[in-house]
C-alpha cells in the first residue's frame, strides 16, 4: 500500500464509500418498505380478511378469482363486493364507503401489500393448480384484521419450497 500516495488513498476511500452509498440506495429501493415484513399500509377501506375469510369462511378464490386462471391473483371489482353489500352492512361506515365508490363509478385504490421485484416472474395459476395453499406464501390471511406482508419473499424463501417439492430451481424458472 505504501506505493499509493495519500491523494490516491483518499480517492480510493471516497470511491468505496460512494459505491457503498449507491448500494444502500439500491437496497432501500429493492428491499424498501414494501419488501419488509412490517409493511402494513392503511387501506382506503378498512377491509378485514379476518371477518370475510376467517369468520365467514368465504373461500379466497371467490374474490381473487384470477388466481387459478392467470399470473395475477387479481383484486375483485367493486361490483363483486356489491354482490353481497347491496344487502349487507349498509349501516356500517366502511360498507358505506364502498357504496360511495360504486355509486360514483370510482375505482378503489388499494395500497399494494405483496409485490415482487421486477426481475422475478411469478405465476399464481401454476402454484394453485399444483395445490399450494395461499397461506403457504401469504401467511395466515384469514386471521388478519389488516393484511401485512408475512414473509420476506427473498430468494431463499422461494428456493426452499421449490427444493422440498422437487420444483425446478433453474435460474430462468423465475428470472425469465
Amino acid at each position: 500500500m505504501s506505493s499509493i500516495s495519500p491523494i490516491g488513498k483518499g480517492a480510493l476511500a471516497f470511491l468505496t464509500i460512494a459505491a457503498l452509498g449507491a448500494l444502500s440506495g439500491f437496497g432501500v429501493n429493492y428491499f424498501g418498505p414494501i419488501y419488509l415484513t412490517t409493511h402494513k399500509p392503511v387501506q382506503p377501506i378498512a377491509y378485514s380478511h379476518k371477518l370475510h375469510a376467517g369468520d365467514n369462511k368465504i373461500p379466497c378464490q371467490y374474490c381473487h378469482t384470477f388466481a387459478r386462471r392467470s399470473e395475477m391473483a387479481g383484486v375483485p371489482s367493486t361490483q363483486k363486493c356489491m354482490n353481497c353489500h347491496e344487502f349487507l352492512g349498509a349501516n356500517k361506515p366502511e360498507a358505506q364507503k364502498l357504496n360511495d365508490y360504486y355509486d360514483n363509478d370510482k375505482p378503489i385504490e388499494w395500497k399494494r401489500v405483496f409485490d415482487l421485484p421486477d426481475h422475478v416472474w411469478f405465476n399464481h395459476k401454476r402454484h394453485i393448480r399444483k395445490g399450494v395453499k395461499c397461506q403457504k406464501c401469504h401467511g395466515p390471511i384469514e386471521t388478519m384484521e389488516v393484511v401485512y406482508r408475512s414473509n420476506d419473499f427473498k430468494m431463499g424463501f422461494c428456493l426452499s419450497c421449490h427444493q422440498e417439492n422437487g420444483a425446478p430451481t433453474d435460474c430462468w424458472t423465475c428470472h425469465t
Partner: protein
Amino acid sequence: MDRRSFLKVGAVTASSGVLGACGQVTKKVIPFVTRPDDGVNPVDGYWYATTCAECNSGCGVIVRTVNGRAKKIEGNAVHPVNGGKLCAKGQAAVQRVYHRDRLTQPLMRKGAKGSGKFEPVTWEKAIATLGEKLAGAEGSVFYLNSGNNDITAGVANAILGKMSGFTMATNHDPGKESQFAGGATLNEYPHTPYPDLENAEFSLLLGADIFESDRNPVFFARSFGASRRDRPSIRGRLVYCGSRLSSTAASCDKWFPVPPGYLGVLALSIAHVVVESVISRGLAQSIQRNALGRWSEALAEYAPEKVADKVEIKAELIRRIARPFIDEAPAVAIAGDDIAGYSNGVEGLDAVAFLNMVSYEIGREKLRIKPRHTPVSDQDLKQRMLAWFGLAPEKQTFRRLKELVDAMSAGKYKVGVIHHTNPVFDTPASLDVKTALGKVGFVAAFANFMDETTSQADLVLPDHHWLESWSAQVPNFVPGVPVLNLRQPVIRPFNDTRSATDVLLAAAGKAGMKIPAKNGEEYIRKIVDKFRAEMLEIDPTLSRDAAWRTLLSKGGWWPSEEEQEPSETPSNDKLWAMKNRLKVNDPSFEGGSGFPYHLHLYQTVHMGRGAGANQGWLQEAPDPITTLMWQSWVEMNPATASKYGLIEGDLVTVTSPHGSITAPVFPYVGIRPDVISIPLGYGHTEYGEIANNRGANPMKLIGTGMDSQSGALAWRSCKVNVKKAGGSVVMLRSAHPEGEYKGEIFQL
C-alpha cells in the same frame, strides 16, 4: 473542509442520487369498478375489432386490451383491405393514446391570434362557443380534414352543408389525390383495370412506391408477398422505373432510373409496342382494326427508338419490358407518385391506364387473367360508399384546397372547422396557410396534439383517440369490394376528451340547428339500419342489437369471399370505340438555369407526412433504405456529392425559388445524379419535444404548381440548387447502409 467531511458529503450525495434515479415501485392495485364480461382474464386480455385511423387507408385491426388498457394492435385477418397485416404506424398507435403531449382539455385562445397562448375552458363553454359561432356564420363556414371519409365529415356535411357557401375541403397526401382523379379521367372507358399485383406474373411499377406511401402500402405489400410466394410454380416479377431507388424499387427485380417526368412517355412507348404487335399478329377483328389503326397513328411518335433518349432506356430494352404485356401471362402496370407528381401527371396516369386496358383486353380474350376481386377499380363504387355517410362525391384536390386558402386570405370565412389535419406544416410553405388562418374569424380545431395548425386555432377541442371513440369510415383506396369500416371504443378515454362527432352534434344542437342524430354512435347505427337489407353478412332474422354486435365483432361490413361475385367484365366495344388523347407532354419545371437539380420529395413508410413525428417509436424506426433515424437527410448521388466535396453528415443548404433548408447529406447510389431527394415529415416546430427541431421540412422548398387537368399538386416539379453549408453532424443509423454484407454483390 477536511478530507473526512468531504467523504461523508460525497457518500450522501452518491446514495441520494441513486435513490432518486431508481424511482418508485408499484404502490397501488386498482381493480375494475364494474367487472367486464365473464371470463375476462386480467393477463390475457381481450381482443376487440376496430379500424385504424393513422392514415386514410382504413385497415381493419384487432386490439388487445388488458385491464382496460390498449396493449397491442394487430391487423384484422378477415378484413379485405389488409388481411391481417399492419404497418408500423398502425402498430405504434397505442403510443399516441398514452402520449405525454396529448391534449387533455378544451383550450381557448388567450393571447393574440396565432400566438399559441391558450387557457383551459370547460367542455360546456367550449361547446356553447362553437355552437354560437356556427349559428352566426351563415354562408361563410369551411370544414377541412385529411380526406378520411369518416362520419365526422358526414355529420359536418349534414349540419353545415345546408348553409349556403359552406366549403368542404381536404388536405390529401400529395400524389394520392392525383391517383384518385386519374382513374376517373378516362370517361370513355367504364373502368380502369384494378392493379391486381397479387395475380399478375409481371408488374411494371412506374414510379409507384406502393409499399411505402401509395394508396395503401399494407394492401400492396400483402399482394406482393402473395405474388412472390403463394403460387407453386410462379414467382411474380417486378420492374421499377423511376428516378430514385425507393424501398419499393429495392423489392423489385430491376430498376430503371428514368428521368423525372418522363414515365408517362415510357408507358405510351410500351403501349406502342403492344399495339403494333397486335396489328402485326393479325389478332384484331374488324371493329378493333379501326381502333388499332387510330392508336397506332397516335402512338407513332412514341416508338421506342424515338423516345429512347428521353427516357434513357435503350429501345431494345423498352421492347423487352413490353413483352409481358403482349404475352399470355397476366401483366399489370401500376402508376404512382413519380408519374402523378408532375405537371403532366394526369396524362401519364391516362397513358398507364391505357396500357393496362389494351393489355387486359388481349389477355382477357385468352381467358388468362383471373383476378380475385372485381377486376376494376370502380370509382362509382367509392362514390356510392361515400354517399352512405352523406358525403358528396366531389373530387377533392389540391386546387380546391388552394381556392379555400385564397378565400380565407381574402377574409371570406367567418368560421372554420379543422379536423385532424396539419396544413400549416404539410402543405407547401408558399401556400401560407398560417397567414390565411389568421384572417378567418374563428377557427376550431379537433386534434389529439398541439401542432403547427392547432396552435393557430381559437378553440382547441381535444378529440378522443380512435381507440376511444365511435366512428365509421370508407377506405380511401377501394379494394374492389364495398367496405364499411366500423370503429368502436376499445378502451375508456384516457383524458377528458370528447369525440369530434359528438361535439359537433352537441354544438349544432345547442345553437338550435337541425341535427341528424344525438351522437356519433346513433348516427352510425342509423347508417347500419339503412343498409341492413344490403348487408349480406348479416342474418336477416337477427335483432337490431344482435346484428349491430355481429358487425362490431368483425370490425365492419363487407361481402365474404364467397359472396364477392366477379363483376361483369368491362365491355369490349367501349374500349375499341374509345377516342383517347394518347399524348404525354414534356413536363415543365419550376426554377431556371440557377437550379440544376430535380427535387424529389417522398414519404417513408413510417413517417408519412409527419403526423407520427412526435412518436418515439416511429422516430426510432430506421428508414428501410438508409437506416437513418431521428433526423431528416438530403440524398445525393455520390458523384453529385463529391462534386461539392460532400461526405456523409456534411450540412448542405438546398435552395429553390421558394425557400431553402439545411440538412445533412446522405450519399446514396440509388438516385439519379441530377436528382436530390428529401423525406417528408421532419422539421416540426410546434409538435412537442420529440418532434420539434428534428430535421428540416422540405415543404418550404416547393411551390403551389398544379397539374392543370386534375388540379393535383405537382409536388415533384420543382428544381433546386445545393450549396455546402459548412459543418457536419453525426448521422444516427441502425446498421450499415449496404446491409449485413456491406455491399458484396451476390449473383444468384
